[in-house]
């Protein structure tokens, strides 16, 4: 303790140098904390958009569904029951369960004018449009608990409120191509001939159709969004003659980093008839991306640390040089070399502690402020800006708090050792 006090007093002797060194340290450490926070925030946004906006953290299918390429996916469906949902919901870590059916569908819009009575064809620009898309039948209440961002993404019109609604939600550009307008729920439904039809083949390839209206649209947010649409689950089940059946359960997990663990628990609970996957298994692209970013961060940290520690070495070396006479005196009056080393080490430690705490503190303050303010990222391709909320994990903070003073002390080792090697006679003579 006395050593630290002495060290502090020594540091204060050359205020300017200490100040500059501290400043460098504070900036360096602070920036690293902010950078890590920002990268975390950005990764979270990407993941959130995928997990909370589309996939869910964990998905359950009938065994063989994910790899299946050959048969209609509807053949690999599952019986949906309150018991099964309760079973899934009761597993530790599972927050909510949402049933879904994903299927290929055709949408057909009505002609803009009635067909001529004589049987001649309607001109092309008055004909209705037909197009294919991937439809996902969802239960809005359940879906909102598992993919809350999905509902938030519907920026025109609305997400259908109930599972037996007649509205569907399409990609905005797709809807433009179909030349369909959003239906205002306050107005009565258009007459049947003017309604859009949703057509699909059931698992036996028999065609069926349902009348629908466009309830809302969502913007293109990521690749592959254009040909995806949401339909009410009840409508889908009726359309596909699959009442009481689904093709997938999307499951939200709290906390999200426990997804692997929870996935295993789910698999153990429901048995081999089902297969359970986490979002990163279903979408490996993300892992590759975050891997690259983490790699960049480690390189950047390495460089920063080197420079900051260099600053400390530099400053310490200066200090030793400056106090050669003083060191000589200390040695001459019998102080042991080990004590000299400890003294300088202590100085380095004090700088590390103060600089580290202040730097981390500053970084955390900035991260926290931006966390609450949110950094909107303009995304000119999509019309929905994502908001980055930086954050740092406790683990990271702990390692920073421990590592910084340690690093500083380590950096001081060499100058301290040099100091202790001075010969008292020469030291006293010089300067």
């Amino acid at each position, binding site marked *: 303790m006395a050593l630290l006090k002495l060290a502090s007093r020594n540091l204060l002797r050359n205020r300017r140098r200490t100040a500059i060194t501290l400043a460098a340290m504070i900036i360096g450490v602070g920036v690293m904390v902010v950078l890590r926070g920002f990268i975390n925030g950005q990764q979270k946004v990407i993941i959130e958009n995928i997990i909370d906006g589309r996939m869910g953290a964990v998905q359950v299918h009938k065994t063989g569904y994910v790899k299946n390429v050959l*048969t209609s996916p509807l053949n690999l469906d599952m019986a949906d029951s309150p018991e099964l949902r309760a079973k899934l919901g009761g597993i530790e870590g599972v927050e909510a369960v949402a049933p879904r059916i994903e299927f290929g569908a*055709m949408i*057909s819009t*009505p*002609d803009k004018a*009635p*067909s001529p*009575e*004589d*049987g*001649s*064809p*309607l001109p092309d620009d008055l*004909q*209705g449009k*037909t197009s294919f898309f991937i439809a996902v039948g969802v239960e809005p209440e359940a879906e909102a608990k598992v993919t809350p961002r999905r509902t938030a993404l519907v920026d025109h019109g609305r997400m259908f409120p109930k599972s037996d609604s007649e509205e569907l939600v399409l990609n905005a550009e797709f809807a433009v191509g179909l030349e369909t307008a959003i239906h205002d729920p306050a107005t009565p439904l258009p007459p*049947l*001939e003017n*309604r859009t*039809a949703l*057509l699909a*083949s*059931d698992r*036996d*390839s*028999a*065609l*069926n*159709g*349902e*009348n629908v209206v466009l309830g809302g649209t969502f913007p293109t947010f990521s690749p592959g969004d254009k040909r995806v649409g949401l339909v009410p689950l009840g409508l889908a089940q*009726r359309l596909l*003659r699959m009442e009481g059946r689904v093709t997938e359960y999307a499951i939200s997990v709290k906390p999200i980093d426990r997804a692997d663990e929870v996935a295993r628990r789910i698999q153990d609970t429901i048995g081999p008839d089902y297969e359970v996957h986490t979002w990163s298994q279903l979408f490996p692209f993300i892992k590759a991306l975050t891997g690259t970013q983490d790699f960049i961060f480690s390189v950047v940290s390495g460089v920063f640390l080197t420079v900051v520690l260099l600053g400390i070495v530099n400053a310490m070396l200066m200090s030793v040089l400056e106090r050669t006479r003083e060191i000589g005196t200390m040695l001459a009056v019998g102080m042991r070399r080990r004590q000299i080393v400890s003294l300088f080490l202590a100085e380095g430690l004090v700088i590390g502690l103060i600089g580290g705490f202040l730097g981390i503190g500053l970084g955390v303050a900035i991260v926290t402020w931006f966390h609450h303010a949110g950094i909107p990222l303009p995304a000119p391709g999509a019309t929905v800006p994502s908001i980055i909320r930086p954050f740092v994990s406790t683990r990271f903070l702990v390692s920073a708090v421990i590592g910084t003073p340690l690093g500083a002390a380590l950096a001081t080792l060499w100058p301290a050792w040099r100091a202790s090697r001075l010969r008292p006679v020469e030291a006293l003579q010089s300067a």
Partner: protein
Amino acid sequence: MANPEMTMRVIALMTAVLALPAFAAEPTVDELLKKYDSIMGPTAYEAETTMTATREDGSVRSYEMKFLKKDNDKFRLWFGNPSSVKGQEMLRNGESMWIYLPNLKRATRIASRDNFQGGDFNNADVLRVNYQADYTGTLEKSDADATYLLVLKAKNPDTSYDSIRLYLRKSDLQPMKGQYFGTSGQMIRSAEFTDHREFDKGYVRPGKVVMKNELVKARKSEMVMKSLKLNVEVPAQRFTQSDLGK
């Protein structure tokens, strides 16, 4: 001639020649095509058929339908069975196609290139037969007994197949076998025409057509004609979108 035996033979021969039916001479390609179109796609008729589709997993699905055809480009069909398709109707008028689904309570457009209810006829197969207009043909030596082999080549790029080998029975020109090829020369489909019988006054045609998918051999579809009436008078109005569902 001096030899009475010879004379007898000549007279017998000449009588025999005179007694032969009108097309003892090889029929022309045009005649064959016309005959085929008249058998398989008469200008106006009403028919009841059953289509059965078999998939490679062994599953079998059967549909009962009623057909109505007028001119060469107006078709209408109603589905009767099974209950999943009962009440559905399809209409083709020229290039436009509609489907009526009872659930929809109205007709809606569809694309004509889809598979017909997931079977192996594509929609054009089933609903349009006009080989005279679409193909040119040559007669070749047939590798099947007592048949003419008519090799057809597409006249325009809009036909489903690039070339077709049609085997027609020599005795009555009924189609027996068909092979349908893509532009590369690979056989995409093959058909067998069997159960030839009279459906309407003087009108004989195959009662059963089995279409095999030559690329996925375990897939096939059968069309069984249950009844057919020719020259049905149908107002053009029945082939408009507004008539569907009535």
